[in-house]
């Protein structure tokens, strides 16, 4: 009945390396599942190499072209070398979200440490990219063009803070959406169970209301699963564009 029980990390295989507990857990298991599914979709889907694609190949090609267009439209043509990175981010988050929608699975994207590590990877990646491309000129990014010099003492701290907040907002957005959605599903399911066990026959009828809400929420959660993967990767694209162009 505890709606937060689904977020519990349970070790499957105890592993300790250098004093750190790095056990293979349910979270790790579904990360492996997501990677395996992505790779299987792309490899088996494209194995036919058909001129006129079948269903699975179409799906693989749609994902490829969707992300390719996203990178081109949002990060520019110079961002082509970083397409695999954005694609990996998008697919990993999307499949993490979608696999989590299957009952009795674990949604690894509902853990802040996972989303934060991903967001921090993006943050470090774009910062290193900007530094490599523009050198120390990168720091001009924090002073908007055309702003009066007198405002610099206010603007620069604001820009620096907003830049540093990127991984925080990126990770909390995904984590909060996934956790909220899954918790809500459990809470409404819990209402139904509580009504039935508490009110008997009347509760059975009344329990249909949260059940109906739950059905609607499930559809909504599929939308959120896709939307959050899209938002995460599109922001990655925009950050890459900032790193390449510095405004």
């Amino acid at each position, binding site marked *: *009945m*505890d*709606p*937060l*029980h689904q*977020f*519990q*990390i349970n*070790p499957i295989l105890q*592993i300790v*390396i250098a004093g*750190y*507990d790095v*056990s*293979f*857990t349910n*979270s*790790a298991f579904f*990360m*492996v599942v*997501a*990677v395996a599914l*992505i*790779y299987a979709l*792309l*490899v088996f889907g*494209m194995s036919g190499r058909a*001129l006129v694609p079948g269903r699975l190949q179409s799906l693989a090609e749609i994902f*490829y*072209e969707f992300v390719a267009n996203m990178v081109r439209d949002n990060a520019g043509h110079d961002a082509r070398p970083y397409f*695999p*990175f954005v694609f*990996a981010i998008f*697919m*990993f988050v999307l499949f993490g979200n979608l696999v989590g929608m299957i009952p009795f699975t674990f949604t*690894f994207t*509902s*853990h*802040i*440490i*996972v989303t934060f*590590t*991903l967001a921090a*990877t993006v943050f470090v990646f774009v910062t290193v990219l900007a530094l490599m491309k523009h050198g120390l000129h990168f720091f001009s990014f924090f002073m908007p063009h055309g702003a009066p010099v007198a405002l610099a003492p206010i603007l620069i701290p604001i820009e620096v803070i907003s830049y540093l907040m990127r991984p925080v907002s990126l990770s*909390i*957005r995904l*984590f*909060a*959406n996934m*956790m*909220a*959605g899954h*918790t*809500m599903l*459990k*809470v409404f399911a*819990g209402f139904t169970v509580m009504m039935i066990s508490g009110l008997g026959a009347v509760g059975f009828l009344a329990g249909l209301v949260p059940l109906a809400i739950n059905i609607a929420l499930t559809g909504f959660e599929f939308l959120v699963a896709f939307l959050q993967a899209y*938002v995460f990767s*599109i922001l990655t694209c*925009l950050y890459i564009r900032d790193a390449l162009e510095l405004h």
Partner: protein
Amino acid sequence: MPNLLAKRRLVRWSGAAGASLATLTVLAGNVLAAAAEHAPDAAHGGEHAAGGLPQLNPATFPTQIFWLALTFITLYYLLSKKALPRVAEVLEERQERISRDLSKAASLKEEAEAAMAQVDQSLAGARSEAQALIAQVAAEIDANNHARQAQLNAENAERLRSAEASIAAAKEQAIANVRSVSADIARDVAGRLAGLDVDAAQADAAVAAVIEERRS
């Protein structure tokens, strides 16, 4: 860039919505969790009663970071080295095939157009040749007709002339016969009625004078 702005707005909206939803549901979840703990049949209430939100339990951080890094790096390696080049290859191949087919179709069309032009040209040549032939034959027939016409005309004229001549000769002959008969009759009449013996030459002259008079 309204599109970009809209995207940023979407991002901000979904973030805010998610955060507020998270707060609400975590509150609700905590209430339910507390209720579950107090329930006598709480199956797994005690398991994480101390931790509260499992997401905030730092003990699980190393394993999650470790496996995330391992799986994500594996995924990136597999995608960038194997899967994505393969997809790109297939897409490129298709694009190439399509453009090749298109250019082939274009060259075939050009060829067909050239053949069509040639056919048109030879058709026009044949037509003008035929026309020339027809004109030539027509001219030949025309000339032939003209010659025959002229010949016929000449023949007719000749015949006409000879007929006219023979008619004139016959007429002269008839007139001469009539004159001599008339002179004889005139002499005879004059001799019987008046008893005059008219000289033949005189009678002839008188008849001739009358004939001449009538003729004119």
